């Protein structure tokens, strides 16, 4: 079954030298429980596409379907993990999640349980009353993930969430994400410019070039659970890196 379908999405911005086309007539499908990654160079419009799905940015043309029904952008249960944690510094980890729960219209009696559950699931059970400044970069990003999952999303939007973390922290975060994803059954729309990350995480990878055109889509031919250092995975990674850079050159 299809969870998310983007049909003919076009987005233009008013640039200094006239209108700037970010992407035009873009189609994308994400299946139920599928982990799809959009790969592309910086500035290709990946983040704009995520924001358009979330309803934060308006599309010029194009429609979005969710669960087979046409919907307004953002009018379906989704969670968003940003590139930076985007936590409210003046609220504790628990209160940051409560903010999202309230925003999503989750009943107040449910808040405590959900906050406890999700902080525990991201390994931050003891940090509920900590302010973001008291947490490390990796911990903050995990609060961001807990916040996105706590609202009970059927689709998780993730915008290079691990790009600012060190290699070891990012690796653990990816492992944690795969476990949570397997448990929740949510579909994931992931964005990155890191081929290794795309290969270890995704079911399918969609490649965008600098003009915002999709030029390749591949299914990752590896079973789960995946061993991140599996030579077969490394080989796929090398192959896709070649495809990617040949197009960009």
């Amino acid at each position, binding site marked *: 079954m299809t969870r998310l379908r983007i049909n003919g999405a076009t987005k233009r911005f008013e640039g200094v030298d006239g209108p700037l086309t970010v992407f035009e007539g873009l189609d994308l499908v994400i299946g139920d429980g599928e982990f799809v990654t959009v790969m592309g160079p910086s500035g290709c419009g990946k983040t704009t596409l995520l*924001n358009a799905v*979330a*309803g*934060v940015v308006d599309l010029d043309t194009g429609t979005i379907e969710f669960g087979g029904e046409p919907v307004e952008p*953002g009018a379906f249960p989704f969670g*968003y993990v*940003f590139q*930076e944690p*985007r936590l*409210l*510094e*003046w*609220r504790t980890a628990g209160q940051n999640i409560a*903010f*999202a729960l*309230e*925003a*999503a*219209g989750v009943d107040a009696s449910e808040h405590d349980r959900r906050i406890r559950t999700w902080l525990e699931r991201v390994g931050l059970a003891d940090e509920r009353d*900590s*302010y*973001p*400044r*008291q947490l490390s970069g990796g911990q903050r990003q995990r609060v961001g993930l807990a*916040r996105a999952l706590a*609202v009970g999303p059927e689709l998780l939007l993730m915008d290079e969430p691990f790009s600012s973390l060190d290699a070891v922290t990012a690796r653990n975060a990816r492992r944690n994400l795969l476990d949570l994803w397997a448990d929740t059954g949510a579909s994931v729309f992931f964005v990155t410019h890191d081929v290794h990350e795309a290969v270890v995480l995704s079911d399918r990878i969609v490649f965008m070039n600098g003009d915002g055109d999709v030029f390749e889509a591949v299914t990752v031919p590896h079973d789960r659970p995946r061993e991140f250092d599996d030579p077969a995975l490394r080989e796929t990674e090398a192959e896709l890196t070649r495809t990617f850079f040949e197009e960009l050159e």
Partner: protein
Amino acid sequence: MSTDDDRRFRSLRTITAPRPATVVSVLTVLAGWQLFSTFFSPYRFPGLWTLAGNVTTVLSGGTRFDPFTQFGATVARVAVGFGLSMMFSTIWGVAMGARSTLGEYLSGPLFVLLTVPSVVWAFVGVIWFGLTEFLVPVFVVTLVVFPYLTVVVWEGMGDVDESLVEMAEAFGASTAATWRYVYLPQLRPHLFGAARIGLAVSWKLALVAEVFGSATGVGVAVKHHFETFENGMVLAWAVPMMALIYGADRLLRRVERRAARWKSEATERQGALE
């Protein structure tokens, strides 16, 4: 006493108890005053004892002006003028910051208001409303003070992290929730800054307005003593108001610190970890 009462009592104490830095800074001002006064005749610049004597005279009703009526009138005008200024500047500043097109339209009138001299407002007030006890001073205070505060609030809106507003929007937060939890905490230091400036400037303007068109207030007493060459009494009437405004300012500062408690808590623990 229950622990809840106890906690409330303690938090009230932390707001009102003097801090060492405050004590030292007040003592420095007093010592400087005393030192400075030794270079002048008591008529031009009275020493602390003379001044204290004069203030006592003022407060005990030893002059032709009743202290409660005069201070009461000035405090009431300052309070209302300051309150209106805060209200208008918050609305205007937020409106300018929230929509850039609105900001462009509203910045013209704002800068016109900023350039009108306070004396002109005082005369205009008297011409428009006549010699009124309340309306003219409040009119002057509000029209002079609120444009300054608007600039502070407007600047504050520029510091709001848009990515957090986007986050709130993505999670579907209502406009009210976004203002309360995202904008307001970021705007709070600027609002407190505006309040502190506003309070200090409001009372000065209230006095100017009183000198021009009023029969009561500290300004009237000051004007009388100036005209009768009682320099010591001119200062003596100002001192209690200065003390009052200073106290209000310290109180605001304390409340501000309490509102930003999360900052110090966060740093304290960070310090303990490092």
